[in-house]
């Protein structure tokens, strides 16, 4: 940044030189020193660990395909910052543990479908307050057995240099990155979701299990009545339930008919129907704090 500032000064000097028909010797001397100072201040490591401010849309892809087919689409990245930015785009293995840990890995795992993914470009330059689309394609090989594959597309700022050294201490450059999680269903795969009860403690979560072979989600609005006889609308987190997993989904309480957050008094009775892609899950349970 220091280098950029001093470079701007030099350009201003150059503009001044161009508009002046006969630059004085004093001005030439000042311009020379300005140029010299700017060269000294341009540090190739100065941009390391720069901040990150961007948006990606869609934030998640849930795709369906068949063996031998191609799925196409596009992602839109917006640079919400005040400086031009270069973004690097690449695929990554992704897994989501029952504990809620998102695991990313560059190492190609067995049966990975990352080789099916083709990205339009690996590097995208976006002007400030501007958007750019980049396309993707999944080429599903013929003969691929029915399965759901999961992966991520990572978008991160380009690292413009090494790490600037601190003067005898610790330096902690911090980087931001976004991951678009992709679920690609090939052939006839389905989730099979069931409600297994409330969490043992902690109150505001329900547990679900998925015995199918594809990721599922539940949605819906339930009714709640707390110990003080207050009514609530109760919505459930849209977090994914991966095949073979059990997951606790957080509940959110709001005043009936509104979306204003409310806090219940435990115990709370919750009832209603939740929906997933292929069915309905009736829920009637009591939440304990």
């Amino acid at each position, binding site marked *: 940044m220091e280098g950029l500032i001093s470079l701007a000064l030099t350009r201003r000097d150059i503009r001044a030189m161009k508009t002046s028909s006969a630059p004085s010797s004093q001005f030439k001397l000042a311009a020379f020193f300005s140029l010299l100072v700017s060269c000294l201040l341009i540090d190739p490591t100065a941009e390391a660990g720069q*901040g*990150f401010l961007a948006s990606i849309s869609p934030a998640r892809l849930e795709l369906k395909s068949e063996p031998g087919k191609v799925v196409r689409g596009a992602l839109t990245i917006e640079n919400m910052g005040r400086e031009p930015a270069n973004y690097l785009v690449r695929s990554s293995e992704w897994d989501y543990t029952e504990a809620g840990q998102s695991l990313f890995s560059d190492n190609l795992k067995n049966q990975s479908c990352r080789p099916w993914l083709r990205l339009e470009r690996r590097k995208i330059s976006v002007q400030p307050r501007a958007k750019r689309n980049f396309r993707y394609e999944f080429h599903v090989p013929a003969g691929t057995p029915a399965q759901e594959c999961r992966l991520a597309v990572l978008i991160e700022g380009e690292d413009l240099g090494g790490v600037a050294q601190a003067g005898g201490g610790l*330096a902690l450059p911090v980087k931001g990155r976004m991951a678009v999680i992709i679920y690609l269903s090939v052939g006839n795969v389905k989730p099979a979701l069931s409600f297994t009860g409330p969490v043992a403690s902690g109150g505001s979560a329900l547990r679900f299990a998925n015995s199918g072979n594809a990721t599922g989600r539940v949605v819906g609005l339930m009714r709640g009545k707390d110990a003080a006889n207050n009514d609530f609308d109760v919505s459930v*987190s849209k*977090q994914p339930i991966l095949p073979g997993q059990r997951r606790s989904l957080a509940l959110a309480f709001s005043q009936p008919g509104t*979306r204003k957050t409310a806090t219940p008094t435990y115990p709370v009775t919750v009832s209603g129907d939740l929906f997933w892609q292929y069915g309905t899950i009736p829920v009637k349970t009591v939440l304990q704090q």
Partner: protein
Amino acid sequence: MSYRLAWVIATGALAVALPAHAEEASDTVGLGMQYNISVNLDFEIDIPELLIFRVGSDGSVKDQIVFDVAQSPAPPTSDQSYNGQPLYGDGTVVAASNNGSLEVEVIANSGTAVITTSFDNTNGLSNGDGNFIPFDEIACESDNTGIPAPQLANVGTPPVTVTPNRHGGLVTEQVANWTYTYKNSQAVAAGTYVGIVTYTASVP
């Protein structure tokens, strides 16, 4: 009144009068039936699924947290040099001398956002000479429980879930300041230690 203004008024009056005349004509010519014409006006609002993520500045300045540990130790209180206490690594917390606090912002409308943490070196911050300071020597606190600060550790830094706080828990708009300090609980070899932290936001 100019000719143009008169023409505009006359045209407008004609436009108002014509439908009334048509309705009257249909009533007399037809069989006394009332014609009801309904026009649907459908609204469609397309809200795209998106994820907005900010870490630190917006890219115009570098975000490197720096701790200057090269400070003078407290003077000894007896004839014995420093009372046998270590000069460094005595647990005196060191605030960052540069960028000690970073702004973090998450906006998401398609599910619960999760932030995971990774490092360039799972041994810790390195001085390039084979010595390391584990990342858990860096403490981080958030001023907003909606975006808890990840507690750094060389391996297995727990993810943080960003609490959806809008529209009945379906939309997330959270901003926080994460403040970093150096715990200074280990006596380590001299050098400049560097370690890169990468925060990844996703909506699984």
